[in-house]
């Protein structure tokens, strides 16, 4: 699969290719794609900010996400694989389009909800799980980036909680509308099997059935991501019985 965005990384000497390297290659491809998409989203967000300081903040976030992508690419080279990325892959493209709709509407809060509440929940939870089982520096990198992403969420939470305090019903309606759009796509992406064809990110066949070989599973990554999402919505103050219904109605 052709990389759509190149990553400028230093050359790392390859060690011998382990039997699980192709699995990590696909895991890294998804992670790099997610990071690059996040970088693109923050860059787009900067275009609707008025305050110069906040423009700088958004661009700084974009740079951080690109840095994460580069670190993942470096980890790929360490295990002897060249990791591609594809921000135009079908699911990721839909997620980008959902974000861009908020940008078009100059909906700053909507942008934060999509990126910080939905996409970052997925990133934080899945990176943390991968961090626990991936070997050596690969695992450390996933764990460390998971922690950094969690800080992003904390930063956005204060803004979003304040916004909800102004009009809880309007805020919750907005989150639900975006949930239907974004989380439906994420849930399809996270399903135990890719029922509607190749995801356009994995290098070969779908990586999901092979995850067991590295003590992971698609079900675990989905469960952890949705749990993180629910906990984040709890922190926003949206009633738990409401968000429970949202999540149980997602496709499997």
């Amino acid at each position: 699969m052709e990389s759509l965005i190149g990553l400028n990384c230093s050359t790392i000497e390859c060690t011998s290719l382990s039997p699980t390297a192709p699995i990590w290659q696909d895991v890294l491809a998804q992670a790099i794609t997610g990071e690059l998409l996040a970088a693109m989203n923050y860059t787009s967000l900067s275009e609707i900010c008025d305050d110069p300081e906040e423009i700088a903040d958004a661009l700084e976030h974009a740079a951080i996400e690109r840095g994460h992508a580069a670190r993942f690419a470096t980890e790929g080279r360490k295990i002897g694989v060249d990791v591609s990325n594809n921000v135009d892959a079908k699911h990721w493209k839909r997620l980008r389009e959902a974000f861009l709709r908020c940008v078009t509407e100059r909906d700053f809060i909507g942008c934060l909800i999509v990126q910080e509440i939905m996409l970052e929940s997925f990133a934080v939870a899945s990176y943390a799980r991968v961090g626990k089982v991936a070997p050596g520096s690969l695992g450390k990198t996933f764990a460390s980036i998971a922690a950094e992403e969690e800080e992003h969420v904390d930063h956005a939470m204060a803004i979003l909680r304040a916004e909800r305090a102004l009009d809880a019903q309007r805020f919750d309606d907005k989150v639900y509308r975006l949930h239907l759009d974004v989380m439906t796509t994420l849930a399809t992406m996270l399903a135990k099997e890719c029922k509607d064809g190749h995801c356009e990110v994995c290098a070969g066949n779908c990586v999901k059935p092979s995850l067991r070989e590295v003590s992971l599973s698609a079900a675990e990554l989905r469960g952890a991501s949705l749990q993180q999402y629910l906990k984040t919505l709890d922190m926003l103050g949206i009633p738990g019985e409401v968000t429970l219904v949202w999540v149980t109605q997602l496709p499997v």
Partner: protein
Amino acid sequence: MGDSVASLARRERTIQGQTFRGQTSEVDFALIGHQESWRAASDVLSVLRGPERTPLPDDEIKDILPWIPPRAVCHVEVGSIVGAKVRGLYIDSFIPPNRLEAGYVHENIARVRAAAACAIQAGAKIVSLGGFSSILIEGDFDQLPERHDTVFTTGNTLTVGYIVEGIKKMCALEGRDLRRSTLLIVGATGDVGSGCARCLAPLVKRVLLSARNVERLRRLAAELQADRVQVEIATDLQENDLLEDNRQRFSSEADVVICAASLASPSLLLGRIAPEAIVCDAGYPKNLSPNAEMPGAKIFFGGLGQITGGLRFTPDFHGILNRHPFPDVVHGCLLEGMALALEGRFEPFSQGRGFITPQRVEEMETIAARHGIYLAPLYNGDGPVEDCYARCVAPSLPLRSLGQGLRSCGTDTPVRRF
């Protein structure tokens, strides 16, 4: 980007405070529970998904449920026969039905704590802990989060009350004289088991106590013996361990049995009990194994009460959260919080282990009855128990012949469906 983060955060603190105060007046009680089986869990998720969506396959439910953090599932409104009405929440700890074993104790305590935090955050004035939620922390309420104005009760006092009432009712239906009975309590040193022992020991001929902890058994036996009750103890019903007086087994077979053990699944095999013994399965989850061989046993599920003043779930979880063949039947442990809320007595009525006395049980049952909460009609895995007596026995027959009536209904075969 509009307002600065700092100014927005200040506004949030102010308004959140108002919101929280607003919520406190809306939630009188909270009920913390968990699902006893995957079927029950599946039904809960089906209601949440709505009728227009296909139910989740079983394998997906087993994959998804363990990841759901404890949270409110529905609102509950309870009416009293004297007109009062209280509102509450049912909070599910989402302990997976296959993870009740000791190996998951820390994870499950964390779940109960998180569920308790939900109740506190919602501003519940009193919280009842159902099933394993209370077993996990009944000995140590300090494991709960900081409680503000919320009080917690295990609800075990009312559970004991309904178990005892159920035994008395079943004996009456069967024409048995409780004073001539040998009572076996399995899980005797637990809060519910020991409460049942204190209530029933003075009323029976002999008490057999079974539990895993021999020291606790001895302490309870000594307490009952001080009141001149004949007591024997054993730690293993199957092996009938040698414990006292060189006896290899209980010296007599029990004809009345209460199963109140903290078992992760219905796995109890009772071993030697009298033919046609009355057996009350009071477990949450149920105790008795579907493979239990108890020829002629009269089994019923104990510790259940019925609300007669009205019970409403929003969304509608009737028959899902309370899976019983009669309307508005609920576990006694959960009913205790509702009854206390209706009474306006927001106090930790049942706490700790081993403090349930006949006097406290009577007080709790009186409170519940004042609001129209009574012992539920008896039933077992085959359905209602009392219907069978009513169908088979003419009203004019003396009570003693009721047992004969039950047999002629064909219900004296072992009950194996739980």
